């Protein structure tokens, strides 16, 4: 404020001291919704003011602060320091159960990997939407395996390490077979048809062509 003193001794029409000009541009830049260029600032300041010089001081003053003076196009604006952006965000993590389509697709991939999309559809009896596969890929629970050596060389899907992590499995081979699932009461408790043996039950895994290829890559 000693600068003020000096100034008042000069003519009334002199430009305000630079410290005062700095205050002015600080207030204007703070209150403005858009960046201001030096011409606009000068037009609003007392005659003889030099916003460019004041800007140099102000920029220095805000160096390393929580808010910085930045150049935006031809203008200047105050902006939150980039490293503090996280304070302006409130993250909300929401856990949601995986959809039935997704969990079924995932289960088929886990039990039959490597498996093509056509095979998944064949097993589920319905087509598999792109979104379902994308979701599982994005969650990094499945990934692309090697292409099948069949006509069209379709891509295959396999489960990932993070899938095993999430489900607490050492390997996909540890997944219980149908027989075990039934023994554990995990199957729908529809009674098996009297006398009729459950064709193919439990064999699924053994005989499946996929099983040998499991984790080959």
């Amino acid at each position: 404020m000693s600068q003020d003193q000096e100034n008042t001794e000069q003519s009334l029409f002199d430009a305000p001291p630079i410290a005062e000009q700095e205050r002015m541009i600080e207030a204007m830049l703070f209150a403005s919704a858009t960046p201001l260029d030096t011409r606009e600032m000068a037009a609003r300041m007392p005659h003889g003011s030099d916003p460019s010089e004041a800007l140099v001081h102000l920029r220095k003053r805000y160096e390393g602060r929580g808010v910085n003076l930045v150049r935006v196009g031809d203008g200047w604006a105050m902006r939150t320091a980039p490293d503090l952006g996280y304070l302006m965000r409130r993250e909300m993590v929401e856990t949601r159960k995986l959809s039935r389509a997704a969990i079924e697709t995932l289960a088929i991939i886990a039990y039959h990997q490597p498996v093509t999309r056509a095979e998944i559809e064949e097993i589920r009896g319905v087509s598999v939407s792109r979104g379902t596969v994308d979701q599982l890929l994005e969650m990094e629970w499945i990934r692309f395996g090697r292409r099948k050596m069949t006509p069209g060389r379709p891509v295959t899907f396999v489960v990932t390490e993070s899938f095993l992590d999430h489900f607490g499995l050492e390997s996909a081979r540890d997944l219980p077979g149908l027989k075990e699932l039934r023994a554990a009461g995990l199957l729908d408790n529809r009674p098996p048809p009297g006398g009729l043996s459950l064709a193919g039950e439990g064999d699924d895994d053994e005989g499946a062509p996929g099983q040998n290829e499991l984790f080959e890559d």
Partner: protein
Amino acid sequence: MAEDEFDDGARPVALADRLAAEALIVDVDGFEGPLDLLLTLSRTQKVDLRRISILHLARQYLAFVERAKALRLELAADYLVMAAWLAFLKSRLLLPPDPSEEGPSGADLAAHLAFQLERLQAMRDCAARLMGRDRLGRDFFARGLPEDVTRRRETRYTATLLDLMQAYARIRTRDEFRPYVMDRDAIFTMEQALEHLRGLIGFAGTWTDIATYLPEGFTVDPARRRSATASTFAAALELVKEGRAELRQAEIFAPVELRRKD
């Protein structure tokens, strides 16, 4: 507003009062009730509100009401209630206190009225000071470009091993048990087919194989496909019967084709 009119009526001069009262009558709508009017009248006394003569004020007010009556002006009821009360107060103030009389003395009542006037004036002064303060958006400003806190919603999907195994079991056992349960999963009923076709027929401008109308989920499994084919065919016949569609088949075993009938 009426203040200027009182400037020359220095002391209680009856004439000045009457002139003032007339000026006030013209403005009666401009007053916010009797208390506001009393406050305005009190300014003629040019003294601190704490030393105001309530007796004189009562006289002024009553003169005002008399003038209003003479001019046949309609005065709101609260002005008349105040007039009656002030007349009562005036008599109390003028008569020597009667010790046998109940209730507050004239002096007490006058003091309270003076208090009310002073309080109202104080509030008006406060209001003026308040409105004269530096104000947000006029003298000082908030951030012009506020950054709102953005709420980013991240969804994390979960499933348990049990979910996974049950899902698999569900798929693998679906077909096995079908013959033994009243499971209508594989049946696409005529009603369903009709509803399905009705929803689609509007788009069928050209001849289209009815096989392409099979619903999703009934095209792979043979049993389901069979059911859906039969019901879709029957539904197509129904639409033809309703005159909404046409059917054709080029030769035996050729695709049956359906088209919207305009």
